[in-house]
């Protein structure tokens, strides 16, 4: 079985995003970029499935600018076997629907048993791509995975839902999206980072797959949310109690 792992290059989660003064978007100039944290979890899970002898090959895919190669090299250094970059011009945003169409085309060629994605990217927070891909492929989806167990022709996914946890069983091929507690991703070791430089990385374009990436949504403005002002510090618990009472809370 092959596992396809789409990985996205996003602003590093430690960086506080700044809105551009002209309202056209987020300033990504000279900002540290990293692999979307949920995608690191997806790569890790794929590697664990392979290490357990249940998969033979892991293919990492990214749709993004040339620099997304770095993200793919990270996936290769962690343990993916080969990578595909679907390159778009720097600054071009590809919406989840178009990403899902590209992934569908790649899945048609590669026939993976599982496509393992992040549940959401921390940039656009869309939380859509995996579910869209599942619809386009006509295959089942196990979103927000907390535990994944691969069997011969099915995968059992325990999902993090609002009230707690839910378990579903999906026939393969299936789409899985990762939640935070699925695993703790490994760090790539230096020798593996060196080895990753020699692993195959193919470059394609959306046109190679016949996918139109023209956006359906137009962002007309990006603004700062209202800023909350720091309030006051109280001296002790008695003062806090007085405040709460004044608010009618106690």
């Amino acid at each position: 079985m092959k596992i396809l792992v789409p990985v996205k290059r996003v602003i590093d989660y430690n960086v506080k995003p700044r809105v551009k003064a002209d309202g056209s978007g987020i300033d990504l100039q000279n900002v540290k970029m990293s692999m979307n944290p949920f995608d690191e979890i997806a790569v890790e899970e794929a590697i664990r499935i392979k290490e357990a002898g249940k998969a033979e090959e892991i293919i990492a895919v990214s749709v993004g600018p040339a620099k997304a190669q770095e993200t793919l090299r990270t996936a290769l250094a962690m343990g993916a076997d080969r990578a595909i970059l679907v390159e778009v011009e720097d600054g071009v945003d590809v919406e989840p629907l178009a990403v899902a169409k590209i992934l569908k085309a790649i899945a048609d060629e590669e026939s993976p048993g599982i496509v393992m994605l992040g549940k959401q990217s921390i940039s656009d927070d869309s939380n859509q791509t995996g579910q869209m891909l599942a619809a386009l492929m006509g295959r089942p989806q196990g979103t927000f995975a907390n535990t994944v167990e691969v069997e011969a022709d099915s995968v059992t996914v325990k999902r993090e839902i609002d009230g707690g946890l839910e378990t579903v069983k999906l026939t393969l091929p299936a789409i899985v999206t990762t939640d935070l507690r699925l695993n703790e991703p490994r760090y790539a070791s230096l020798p593996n980072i060196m080895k990753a430089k020699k692993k195959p990385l193919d470059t394609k374009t959306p046109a190679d797959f016949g996918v139109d990436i023209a956006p359906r949504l137009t962002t007309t403005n990006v603004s700062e949310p209202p800023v909350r002002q720091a309030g006051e510090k109280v001296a002790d618990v008695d003062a806090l109690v007085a405040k709460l009472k004044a608010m009618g809370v106690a």
Partner: protein
Amino acid sequence: MKTLVWVEHDNSELKDATLSVVTAAAKLGEVHLLVAGSGCSGVADQAAKIAGVGKVHLADDAAYEHALAENVAPLIADLMGHHDAVLFPATTTGKNIAPRVAALLDVMQISDILSVEGGKVFTRPIYAGNAIATVESSDAKLVITVRGTAFDKAEPAGGSAAVEAVSGPGDAGLSSFVGSEIAESERPELTSAKIIVSGGRALKDAETFEQFITPLADKLGAGIGASRAAVDAGYVPNDYQVGQTGKIVAPEVYIAIGISGAIQHLAGMKDSKTIIAINKDEDAPIFQVADIGLVADLYKAVPELTEKL
């Protein structure tokens, strides 16, 4: 515009999350509801009473009992032949199903809207709420998820819509429900609680969390939340997590105890009316958003607070 709203329920009770979505849908046009489930006609009756609702579609079929996306998405896609927009609450159920419907319809979903600015123009948070984007759709049909805290709840009573049975393709044969672990609790649900007491990594372990946070929450009749760090460390279950990748809450009062205030946490609670922080580090970022801050060791301050309330 004719809109369809996904009704969130557990086959017996309609969930509050539905009511804010009805308010958002009413800004677009006529509101129809979809109750999909099994043995859920009672929910349809509750749905019909929501003020401002034109019609309730009831799809009662064993295949829809657990709202498996593989089964309900085709049903909704069919109904979209007669509707211009479908709206879901941005709950885990809504987030699971909506994109599948969008892809079946070949449209781009608009996630987590904060406001309706026009027929096809909406605002939504991006980058953990550090920016608000205004987006306009060019698609013929709209698929939307709605942030509950951004819209008032529609009145659950006063309406008298007709209930109409509909049927869909049923079981897609791709997935099955195995089981669930849902904590039964008398406590208010996080997304509708008026007061939330939230604990962070500083609480050390599950027993300590329970010992210090629970009595205060009990005293206040509050819901209990947590930071990701507290959930990851196993102090509390996953559904307690507040934040960018957990639950988005906006209670009257949010009390953050031993939580540093990482941007991912703030993304989930910074629209609370009053934020109170108790932290021993006076430079903790949480104090930058707190209306009332107390610099103190929680192990002394929290029991004292609980006692004096």
